[in-house]
């Protein structure tokens, strides 16, 4: 092959690469527009009247026109729903992390009869869709007297979150070296002290992953409140949203304002912590 031929093939290779990368970039840009446009239109529409939405749906609005947002803020139970979501999600997360760490620590750090059986028990919980047990759960909550009480939600969320948390934490705690622990034991430290002051600080990165994997489904859940909660003052945000979306069903501006306010907390946190969110939410599916 002559030098000229070689140069020709190289150039063709370069052009092919440029063409391929160009196509890839076009696909990615098109996809990003499709992903973001609905959210941008939602936010824009929150600042428009129904008429403006109808006539110029894509126009940048006057961002000082906060009438729609104010309506949601003051005339609906939005703040109450938001506070309920924060309380229910927060308490569930605390319980999941405390109980999950306890089980995972015991299974991972001590050799005892039945440890692998316990892990298997949690594995069963991991694969069973709890939604399909809603009828027995409903009856159980009624018998416990906590229907129409946020305690029922917290209990179900902890039950849902524990298996994944135990798995993530057990795997991680097993990888920790035992030298520190042995040294502390030589010095006569109690097991509680070893766990609390020596091991737990090392487990924190895995706890963040487990927390994010659970916090999003719990914050967004609609199914269990739909069954358990009737009292409007006890509703969480996704369930409350269905209530006030019904009230303003003809006023598009207010409807978009309601969606924007409901989506805002998680969108803002996601943009700040996107790496942790992506790692946490896909960690269950990546081996």
């Amino acid at each position: 092959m002559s030098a000229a031929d070689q140069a020709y093939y190289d150039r063709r290779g370069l052009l092919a690469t440029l063409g391929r990368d160009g196509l890839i970039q076009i696909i990615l840009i098109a996809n990003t527009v499709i992903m973001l446009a609905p959210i941008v239109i939602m936010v824009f529409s929150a600042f428009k009247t129904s008429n403006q939405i109808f006539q110029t749906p894509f126009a940048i609005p006057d961002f000082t026109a906060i009438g729609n947002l104010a309506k949601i803020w003051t005339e609906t139970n939005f703040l109450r729903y938001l506070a309920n979501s924060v309380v229910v999600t927060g308490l569930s997360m605390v319980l999941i992390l405390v109980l999950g760490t306890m089980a995972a620590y015991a299974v991972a750090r001590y050799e005892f009869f039945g440890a692998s059986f316990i892990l298997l028990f949690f594995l069963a919980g991991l694969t069973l869709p709890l939604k399909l047990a809603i009828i027995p759960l409903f009856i159980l909550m009624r018998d416990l007297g906590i229907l129409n009480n946020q305690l029922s939600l917290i209990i179900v969320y902890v039950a849902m979150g524990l298996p994944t948390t135990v798995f993530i934490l057990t795997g991680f705690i097993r990888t920790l070296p035992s030298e520190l622990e042995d040294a502390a034991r030589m010095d006569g430290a109690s097991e509680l002290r070893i766990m609390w002051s020596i091991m737990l600080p090392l487990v924190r990165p895995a706890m963040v992953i487990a927390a994010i994997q659970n916090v999003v489904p719990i914050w967004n859940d609609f199914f269990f409140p739909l069954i358990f909660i009737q009292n409007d003052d006890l509703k969480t945000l996704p369930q409350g949203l269905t209530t006030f979306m019904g009230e303003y069903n003809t006023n598009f501006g207010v409807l978009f304002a309601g969606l924007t306010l409901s989506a805002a907390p998680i969108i803002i946190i996601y943009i700040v912590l996107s790496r942790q969110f992506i790692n946490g939410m896909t960690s269950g599916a990546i081996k």
Partner: protein
Amino acid sequence: MPSMRLNKRGFWIAALVVPPLAFVALFVVYPILSAFAYAFFEWRGLQRGDFAGFDNFAKVLFTEPYATWTRNAFAHNIIVFFALMVLQNGLGFILAYCLWRELPGVRIHRVAVFLPVVLSTIIVGFLWKLFLHPLFGVVNISLRGIGLGFLAQPWLGQNSTALAALILANAWHMVGFPTLVFLAGMQRIPSEMLDAVRMETQSEWVKISQIVWPLVAPSATIVFTLLFVGAFNWFELPYVMAGIDGSPFGSTDVLGLYFYRTAFGSVSSSTQDFGAGSALAVLLFLFIALVASIMTVRLRKREIEL
């Protein structure tokens, strides 16, 4: 005193293990076992009646009109599963392949594709319901704006388009998940292996079909199985966008909605039938468990150890 130490140690382990175990036993294992038991009893409202054998199962599978409703909802779940397999997982694979090249701007694209995934299904459902409004929705307004007004339709109001619209909304919501799981799988492919293929061939197609696709098989196993479980548990999106009756005329009815209506009543009828509801839940549970295990086993077989 070794026995003393052992007791103390045993007590400590029990203190750690028993509370979480008791919790899962009471609120996961017990309800799921009860769900199976409940299906074999007669129910009057919230009161459990006599043992009914397989009556509840016979009712939802073979007695009209229940049998037709069950078949109709089941068929829709199948359609949803296959459509999302192509739209969500297929597109997810293509997008992952594009992101994998790490061209400029890849970070923004990665954050953008995952953004809808963190939103509540309720928000996504209402958002698309507003966008698809026949008169004031941005979809029809845009179609009229670019001279394609004849394509404007009541997307959610007619049999022919309602289910497709729901499927598209779901694909928009969740496509980021398979994308980033596939991407993580691709990033684990050793670069020597890719260099070796690049020496052999220029063709992207050969590279994808011979190397990338077989090597991301573990990601595919998980994504396919999760989609299957998700498609047969589909509830929130049709509930928000189409209503509890799967309107219009049951064209968007799926097993999740049908189960909810049967167990907890609907707008048109407030009768609660926990017996038939439990039977549906058990059948759905067995079906999901059976197919998901077969899928996992068969897909695992083509996975290659790196």
